[in-house]
């Protein structure tokens, strides 16, 4: 390759280069601010939505609470007995009948902030430990759904034709079944247990991610840069997962935030129905189910606190998801 200087076109070249850099300077000067990347821009607009910021803060706090055991392990501080959760003041499953006179628990006090339940277990500790279950369900179940959905969705949209029909009709089948009934069916087949809850919810919610993504893929695959990638000799899989998929993610992020809230509620419903988390382990739905009968006997504190935790968490995910959708919607850009 000859050097640039030997092209015999030095004058034009100098002119070219200087023109570009000058134009560039002008651009930078007049646009006033440095152009922002997708995330920086989204964050800038998300910050203005107070509800979404509150949601995000709640999510961070609950995640931190749920992960205390892991965080404590990480920094070498975990001295508590396994399964208690580092922040919980009492072992969550420790029965103490002295704290439950007449089998109705004891109301909130300074030593037991949320009171105790019918077996004398500390409701505050149980609620804290249950946070971990809920967060795990939210994150893992949605991850399973995402992995399936984001493989099948793009393939369906990109190839079209028979592949598309088979995948989308399968998705329709999943949509057509009543959700809870289908989860019940899978849980009955798999048997109760934490991991089976993840799997059941994950398998059931892939269809919405796949369908959502397929729609975006249909529009993105017609873009010129996809054809340019093909003209470079990129393989189909590379085009799908490197060029098409990243350009279709914005709606997916919103769906994830919403989906985690949904998965937490589903877990609560399953536990309420008795096929989710098994006793003596605590989950918000399980606690609500167990304590509901004591509400009529006047022990309001047992069911109130896990309910509040569940409501606040789901509210946080949904308001954050809503804020994220507004922040990433190009039509709302100022």
């Amino acid at each position, binding site marked *: *390759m*000859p050097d*640039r200087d030997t*092209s015999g*076109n030095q004058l*034009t*070249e100098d002119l*070219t*280069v200087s*023109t*570009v*850099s000058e*134009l*560039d300077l002008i*651009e930078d000067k007049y646009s006033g601010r440095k*152009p922002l*990347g*997708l995330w920086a821009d989204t964050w800038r607009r998300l910050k203005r939505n107070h509800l979404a910021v509150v949601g995000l803060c709640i999510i961070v706090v609950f995640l931190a609470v749920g992960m205390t055991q892991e965080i404590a392990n990480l920094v070498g501080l975990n001295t508590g007995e396994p399964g208690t959760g580092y922040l919980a003041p009492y072992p969550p499953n420790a029965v103490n009948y002295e704290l439950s006179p007449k089998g109705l628990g004891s109301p909130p006090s300074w030593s037991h902030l949320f009171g105790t339940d019918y077996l004398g277990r500390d409701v505050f500790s149980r609620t804290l430990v249950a946070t971990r279950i809920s967060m795990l369900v939210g994150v893992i179940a949605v991850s399973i759904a995402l992995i399936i959905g984001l493989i099948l969705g793009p393939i369906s949209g990109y190839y079209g034709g028979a592949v598309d029909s088979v995948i989308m009709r399968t998705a329709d089948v999943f949509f057509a079944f009543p959700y809870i009934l289908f989860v019940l069916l899978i849980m009955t087949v798999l048997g109760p247990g934490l991991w089976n809850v993840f799997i059941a919810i994950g398998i059931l919610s892939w269809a919405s991610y796949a369908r959502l993504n397929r729609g975006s893929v249909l529009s993105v695959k017609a*873009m*010129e*840069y996809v*054809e*340019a*990638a*093909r*003209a*470079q*000799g*990129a*393989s189909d899989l590379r085009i799908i997962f*490197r*060029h098409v998929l*990243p*350009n279709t993610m914005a709606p997916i992020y919103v769906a994830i935030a919403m989906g985690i809230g949904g998965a937490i509620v589903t877990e609560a419903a399953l536990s309420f129905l008795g096929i989710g988390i098994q006793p003596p382990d605590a989950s918000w739905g399980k606690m609500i189910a167990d304590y509901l009968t004591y509400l009529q006997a006047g022990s309001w504190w047992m069911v109130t606190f896990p309910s509040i935790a569940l409501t606040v968490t789901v509210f946080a995910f949904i308001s954050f998801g809503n804020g994220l959708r507004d922040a990433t919607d190009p039509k709302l850009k100022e």
Partner: protein
Amino acid sequence: MGERLLTVEGLSTHFFTYAGVVKAVNGVSFTLDRKETLGIVGESGSGKTVAALSLMRLIPDPPGKVVEGSLLLGDRDLRTITDEEIRQVRGNDIAMIFQDPMTSLNPVLKIGNQIAEAIMLHQDKSKGEAWRMAAELLDRVGIPDAAKRVNQYPFEFSGGMRQRAMIAMAISCNPDILIADEPTTALDVTIQAQIIDVIEEMQQAYESGVILITHDLGVVAEIADKVMVMYGGRTVEYGGIDEIFYNPHHPYTWGLLGSLPRLDQTEKTRLTPIKGQPPDLIALPSGCPFVGRCSYERPECRDQWPQLEIVGPEHGVNCWIPEDERREARATLLHFQEYAT
């Protein structure tokens, strides 16, 4: 001219749609040598782009299909090699510059990343090496501060710079053939000239053959060595650049040249358009597709496609009008009086 890179014989590409068979390209033949620039001109829908995409097997199938012809890249037949082989041809032997630089770069990948990817697809290079090469390439195509620019995203580039980046990507694997599909259409006029310069410079440096698809005769006049004029999916005339501009033989070529604005015109003068509309590619006449718009139409024009008539060295035309009548008709046209022999 140098070694023969590409021989296309009787290429026909049709699209089989519900409405009927769209005959986008019908029996087009051309050749390309090393260091040579072939300009393909014609209006929208004349089959220029489809012909080029057929070379790289980038026609979506279904509905499109190359139904006839041979496409020889050196001694390899591009129609019969496997999908794996054609993928190696794409980018490595034949690279393409697209029309709209605003949409042909992936918005979520850094410029350097996209160029490096093209390099790593075809060459055994590590990621670091590929990125270094990407920066060098950007520098070669005249992007200032290339080391910093490789780390930027396409939206931080202006239109002209994006097209430069596209060129850098296209030449990254030193392709034998560079197809530029209307590379300047989406750019403003001052940038157009720069981009044409860059393409020409890269052609010199890498000794590629260039196929330039355009409807801008000014661009063709500047860099093409030979020109193929397409209309309704057929080649109506081909020849060396001087032949086409100073000794055109087909009425359609006259129309194209006649519709250009000229320096000696006053600003009040209207441009001379070619009357009528391009033909419907589903219902092409069996004869010359230019019938209905041609002022010199004869009865035989409608029914039969004329034989190729050689009118000069490397200059052929497909037209029913006898050569002497063509010269006479051309002499009466305002634009060609000065060239008429």
